[in-house]
């Protein structure tokens, strides 16, 4: 039986080819400087994806990814390292890349909350900020080792999130949305008026340093000079891999099954004996924990935290990434985060209009393709089994 199922698995090749092409494209896009070239590349991507969809290739790729995820996951990590190596001395591209990685971790946290448990969280950026401020305060006033600081950032975010638990549990739909929106505004105002935490001026965050290796100094391997952002890249990559694996395992475990049941129909789920409150709490806290860790690391990367970085508008961007990528699908999130973070930075000509265009694109998506770019496939119990 097992051998039959193994044979029915989709081939590895389409996935590998897709990864290789995407890596090459990404390098080209990140390296391009001239506006016409960038616009051309973006247009090409849109056309290529649409064409691939019609020619049936996209379907092959998605099946390949679904069945061979572990191997392709390893290849994806390798691909990321290739991109990082290519830009080893380019500060700005690496910073962009690290931003994408950390935003993906944060959105994966939101994904657990909403995509799996149906708990609305419109204060994602606020919890991100809590993690960042935690790393700012701890690295400035204490000598806590920086890896521990990341964990503390996550736990603090989860802890403060638990304050919202009572209102979140007791409400549904619009009312739940209001609770998190009110919290987002509350936190930003609190940070702004509070002088201890730096007020509107924010706080500087010391760069990360592990066992004496300072992350904020450029280093050299042989004669090749490397940007100091490569240090952060390594840690972020580890964090993302860990989170991704966690999310996947969670989804496939009985915990994930419970969360799915909860999201689809609360009343039916409670009829089956599921403890609604317990699972909602778990999802909410776990999600916030991940968001907090990502925030703490991002604070160290940027070296600066200020209330204006973590407003309601930023939380909206995170929710939109979730929507664009396809709620519940981690790969979709990665793609969507890339699009949302990289494209506005590259297209300088539309810098002014980027928020407007972004909002318009989300509106279009909601009207015409609400499932997102890479919608989450129906839960599959056996590899090779197609619904």
């Amino acid at each position, binding site marked *: 039986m097992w051998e039959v199922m193994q044979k029915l698995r989709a081939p590895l090749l389409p996935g590998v080819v897709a990864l290789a092409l995407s890596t090459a494209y990404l390098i*080209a896009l990140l390296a*391009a*400087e*001239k506006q*016409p*070239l960038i616009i*051309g*590349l973006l247009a*090409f991507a849109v056309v*290529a994806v649409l*064409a691939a969809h019609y*020619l049936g*290739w996209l379907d092959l790729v998605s099946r390949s990814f679904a069945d061979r995820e572990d191997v392709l996951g390893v290849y994806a990590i390798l691909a990321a390292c290739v991109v990082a190596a290519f830009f080893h001395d380019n*500060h*700005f591209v690496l*910073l962009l890349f690290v931003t994408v990685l950390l935003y993906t971790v944060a959105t994966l946290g939101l994904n657990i909350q909403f995509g799996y448990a149906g708990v609305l969280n419109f204060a994602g950026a606020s919890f991100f900020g809590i993690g960042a401020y935690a790393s700012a305060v701890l690295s400035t006033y204490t000598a806590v080792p920086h890896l521990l600081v990341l964990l503390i950032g996550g736990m603090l975010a989860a802890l403060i999130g638990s304050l919202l638990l009572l209102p979140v549990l007791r409400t549904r739909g619009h009312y739940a949305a209001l609770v998190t929106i009110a919290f987002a505004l509350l936190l930003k105002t609190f940070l*702004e*008026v509070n*002088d201890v935490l730096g*007020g*509107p*001026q*924010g706080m*500087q965050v010391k760069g990360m340093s592990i066992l004496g290796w300072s992350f*904020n100094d450029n280093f050299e391997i042989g004669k090749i000079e490397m940007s100091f952002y490569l240090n952060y890249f390594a840690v972020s990559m580890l964090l993302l891999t860990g989170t991704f694996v966690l999310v996947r395992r969670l989804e496939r475990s009985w915990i994930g099954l419970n969360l799915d049941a909860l999201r689809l129909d609360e009343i039916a789920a409670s009829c089956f004996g599921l403890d609604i409150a317990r699972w909602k709490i778990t999802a909410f806290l776990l999600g916030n924990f991940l968001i907090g860790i990502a925030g703490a690391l991002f604070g160290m990367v*940027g*070296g*600066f935290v*200020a209330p*204006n*970085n973590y407003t309601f508008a930023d939380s909206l961007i995170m929710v939109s990434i979730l929507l664009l990528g396809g709620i519940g699908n981690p790969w979709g999130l990665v793609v969507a985060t890339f699009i949302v973070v990289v494209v506005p930075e590259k297209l300088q000509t539309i810098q002014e209009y980027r928020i407007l265009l972004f909002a318009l694109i989300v509106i279009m998506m909601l009207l015409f393709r609400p499932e997102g770019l890479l919608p989450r496939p129906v839960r599959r119990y056996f590899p090779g089994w197609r619904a």
Partner: protein
Amino acid sequence: MSRIARQLSFIFASALFVGALVATAQAKDKIKVGFIGPLTGGVSANGLGGRNSADLAVKLRNADAKAKYEYELVVLDDECKPNVAVQVATKMAADKEIVAAATHYCSATAIATVDVYHKFGFPIIVWGAVLPDITYRAKYAEVHRVNGTMINQNDANAELISKIGFKNVAVIHDTTDYGKGHNEYFSKAFAKLDGKIVGTFGVTADQQDFTAELTQIKALNPEVIYFGGLTPIGVRIRSQMDKLGIKAVFDGTSGIVSDAFIQGLGPLAEGSLAFREGAPTEKLPGGKFFMENYAAQKYDNPPEAYGAFSFAAMDLILDSIEKVGPDRKKVIEELANVKERDSIVGKVTFDDHGQNTVAVITKYVVQDGKFVEWDNSEYATGKRKLPGQQ
């Protein structure tokens, strides 16, 4: 066409297309210099004026036949917000092609970014921010400033208020480092002259409603309301003062020296005080030269209060690059040796913290819809009286 044929032709077409794109990506070399300022938001008038002035410096240099290099100005917007400023500063400093930059009007943004410039070894000259900490908090070789600091401004401010005979002042300041700095220096200076601060109120830089603070101030009955902050909330405070019937003198700092202040208030601006370091643009040594060339370019916005300093900063940068070449480290060394250098704002000398000394402080009062120098105004002669003046 058969399916295979369709797929093959698609691959071929894409390859051709990509090849064509790559071929068109030819780079042309120019030396890049940068400018950062608030191009959008409440104080954008100053940012745009500064940008135009820096642009003027680059244009004039490019038109100069004796110049060794050709220059391109890269402009970024810091929106007068510290977090945005750090992002754009990181972006500019991380770009190895940009050699140096003239940066920041808002003190809140300038103080947030000094560490970024130091991290990347990127030489900058501040053109409009007045907070002393920017150059004095740490000794960074990368950071310089052509305009003065707020200390002298506030000394002159306290002196004038005291001379006219006002003894009770309420202070409103914004909670960024800029406002807090003004509060600190003014309070110190005024206390030295035996003046009394009846109350101090901190407000956020984008606050809309001041009725709460102003109601409390009304109960304290001060003669003067000192405002340490920028034009947008200055306009709001002054107009809400009127709504609550508070008859005190509105005393501001260099943050409100802007046409936007007068436009926003109309007749209510009459009798407001303001102070600024440096002589009015027309009276500067290179003032006439600057104004004539600026007008010739037909920019959409006037240079505003700090345009001349922006021009001087950019000119200094261009001079340094001409002398030592487009190398950041060499430019930093060269800027450290600036002593008694001629510029349109007078002689520039950077002290060991990179700070230039600007001795002159101009006192302004708004008279008939214009900022007029105090000594030339009808208020100084006694023909008109400030609210509450004896």
